[in-house]
C-alpha cells in the first residue's frame, strides 16, 4: 500500500560550519500507491529539501526513506537506479533543458537508462502527448519554446523514464491559469495511464484541492498535518495559523453558510461548488 515511507527524517545543510541550517526536523509520513499526494507549505518550510530525498539527491542526516519497504540507501552505489524509479521534476525545471531539439532532450533520461532506440522513441512520443506537446514542437530547439512549453518539455523528460513515483516540485509556479491546467491535466493523465504514485509540491491550496487525494502540510521543517483532502481542509483555522488558509472556493462556501445559506462546507473545487449551487437554486431557474 505504502509506496514511499519517510521515517523520522532530519536534514541539516552545511552541518558543522557556521552556516549550519536545519531544513527538516524528524519528518515521518507515507506516500500511497495509485494516489496523488500533495505536499503544501510556505516558502522555506523544507518542501524542496524533502522531495530531493525521495530519489536520493540528498541523503537524510538521520532517519530513513523506504521505497517499497526497502531503504533506498541500503546500497549507495545503486542510488542511480532509484532515480529512475522515483522521477523528480525540480523547481523551475525549464532551466535544465540543453539538447538541440525538444525530442532529444526528453530522450536524455531514457538514454541514460540504456533503453533501445525504438523504446526511447516510443516513450518520447508518449510523454509528449501527456503534456500536450505537438509533433512539430518536438523538432524545435527547447530555447525557442514559450515558458510554459519549456516547463512541459522538462516534465515530459522525467515522465519518459516512466518512474513508479513521479514527484513534481512546484510544477505550476509562475504559469498562467491555462498553462497550469495543461500541466496538471498532463500529470493526471500520466498517473491514470501508468498507475504511478504522484507527489505534487505546491503552495497553492486551490491546485491541491483540485488534484490531490492525500495532503501533507509542512510548516517550519516539520509535518504540521497529514491526511485525506477533506480531513485537512476542514481544519481551516489551523491552516490559517500556519499561514496557508483554505481554497478560495471553500472560503466562499463558508461565508455563504455564515450568511444563512444552506450549503455544505466541505466543497473544495469549483466544479463541486457549481453542482451544490445549482442544486440549491435549481428550482428558481
Amino acid at each position, binding site marked *: 500500500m505504502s509506496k514511499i515511507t519517510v521515517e523520522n527524517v532530519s536534514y541539516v545543510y552545511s552541518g558543522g560550519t557556521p552556516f549550519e541550517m536545519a531544513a527538516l526536523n524528524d519528518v515521518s509520513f507515507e506516500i500511497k500507491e495509485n494516489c496523488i499526494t500533495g505536499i503544501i507549505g510556505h516558502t522555506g518550510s523544507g518542501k524542496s529539501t524533502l522531495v530531493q530525498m525521495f530519489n536520493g539527491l540528498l541523503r537524510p542526516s538521520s532517519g530513513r526513506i523506504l521505497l517499497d519497504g526497502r531503504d533506498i540507501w541500503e546500497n549507495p552505489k545503486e542510488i542511480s537506479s532509484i*532515480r529512475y524509479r522515483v522521477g523528480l521534476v525540480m523547481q523551475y525545471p525549464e532551466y535544465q533543458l*540543453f539538447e538541440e531539439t525538444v525530442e532529444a532532450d526528453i530522450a536524455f533520461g531514457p538514454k541514460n537508462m540504456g533503453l533501445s532506440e525504438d523504446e526511447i522513441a516510443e516513450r518520447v512520443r508518449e510523454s509528449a502527448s501527456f503534456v500536450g506537446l505537438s509533433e512539430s514542437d518536438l523538432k524545435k530547439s527547447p530555447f525557442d519554446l514559450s515558458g510554459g512549453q519549456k516547463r512541459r518539455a522538462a516534465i515530459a523528460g522525467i515522465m519518459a523514464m516512466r518512474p513508479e513515483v513521479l514527484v513534481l516540485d512546484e510544477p505550476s509556479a509562475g504559469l498562467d491559469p491555462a498553462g497550469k491546467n495543461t500541466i496538471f491535466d498532463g500529470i493526471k493523465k500520466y498517473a491514470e495511464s501508468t498507475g504511478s504514485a504522484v507527489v505534487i509540491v505546491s503552495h497553492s491550496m486551490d491546485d491541491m484541492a483540485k488534484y490531490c487525494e492525500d495532503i501533507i502540510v509542512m510548516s517550519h521543517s516539520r509535518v504540521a498535518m497529514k491526511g485525506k483532502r477533506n480531513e485537512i481542509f476542514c481544519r481551516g483555522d489551523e491552516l490559517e495559523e500556519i499561514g496557508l488558509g483554505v481554497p478560495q472556493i471553500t472560503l466562499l462556501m463558508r461565508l455563504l453558510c455564515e450568511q444563512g445559506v444552506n450549503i455544505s462546507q466541505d466543497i473544495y473545487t469549483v466544479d463541486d461548488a457549481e453542482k451544490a449551487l445549482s442544486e440549491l437554486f435549481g428550482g428558481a431557474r
Partner: protein
Amino acid sequence: MKSVAFGQYYPSNSVMHRLDPRVKIVIGIFYIVASFLCKNVLSFALLTVSALVLILVSKIPVKIVLKSIKAIIFIMIFTAILNIFWTKGPEENLILHWNFINIYVDGIYNAVFIAVRIISMIIGTSIFLTYTTTPIELTDGLERLLYPLTFIKVPVHEFAMMMTIALRFIPTIIEETEKIMSAQKARGADFTNGSLSKRAKALIPVLIPLFVSAFRRAGELATAMTCRCYRGGNGRTRLKVLKTTYRDYLALFFIAVFGAAIVLLNIYAPGYTM
C-alpha cells in the same frame, strides 16, 4: 558552498573590520614593503610581534590563520632549504662541511628570516585584505584609490563595477550549478564514474544550461540597470560614502611608526645583517 562568495572573509566586529577599506589597502601595501625592509634579528622580531598583534586586534581565530599559512608551507620549506644550502658566507661562519655541501650560519639566518617574512606577509595581507574586508568593500576601496587614474582615461569605475557584479554573481552561479547538476542527476546523469572523457562529456548537460542562463541574466541585469538610468561613473554618487574616522588616522599613524621603527632597527641594531 555559499561561503565561497565571501572568499576568506571572517565576519566579526573588531576594530580591524571597521577600518576604511582604502586605509586597509594602503596599510596592507605598506606592510608588505616594511616586511621587505627588515634586515636583522631585531627588525624581524618586531615584524613577528606585529603579525601576532594583528591577529589579536582583528579577533580572527588562530586556527583560521594557520589554515591560510598551511597553503604555502611547501613553498616556504622549499625556499628555506635552498637558502640553507646555497648561501655562502665568510669562511669563519662555516659550521658544516661534508663533501660538496657547505652550510654557513648565514644560510640558517637567511632561511629563518625569509620564512618569517613570508609568514608575516601572508598574515598581514590576509588580515587587512581578506579576513576583515569583504570583496565588495575591497573593490569599493580600490575604485576610490584609483580614482585619479580616470584623468588619464582609465575606466576605473567600469572595472570596479564589473568586479562587483562578478563577485555578486559568484554565489548565484554556484547555486545554479548545483541545481542543474541535481536536475540532470535526477535524469540519470553520472558525474563521478567512468573515464575522464566520459565525465567531461557528462558536463555538457550542465554547462549549456549554465551559460544560457548566465547570458540571460547578464542581459536582464543590463536592462534593469539601464532602466534605472545607469550610465557609467560620470557624476554618480554613492550610497555608502566611505568615511575615514579617527580610527583610520590612528591606524595610519601606527603603521608609520612601525615602518620607522624597522628602518631604525636596521640602522642601529647589531648582529647578523641579511
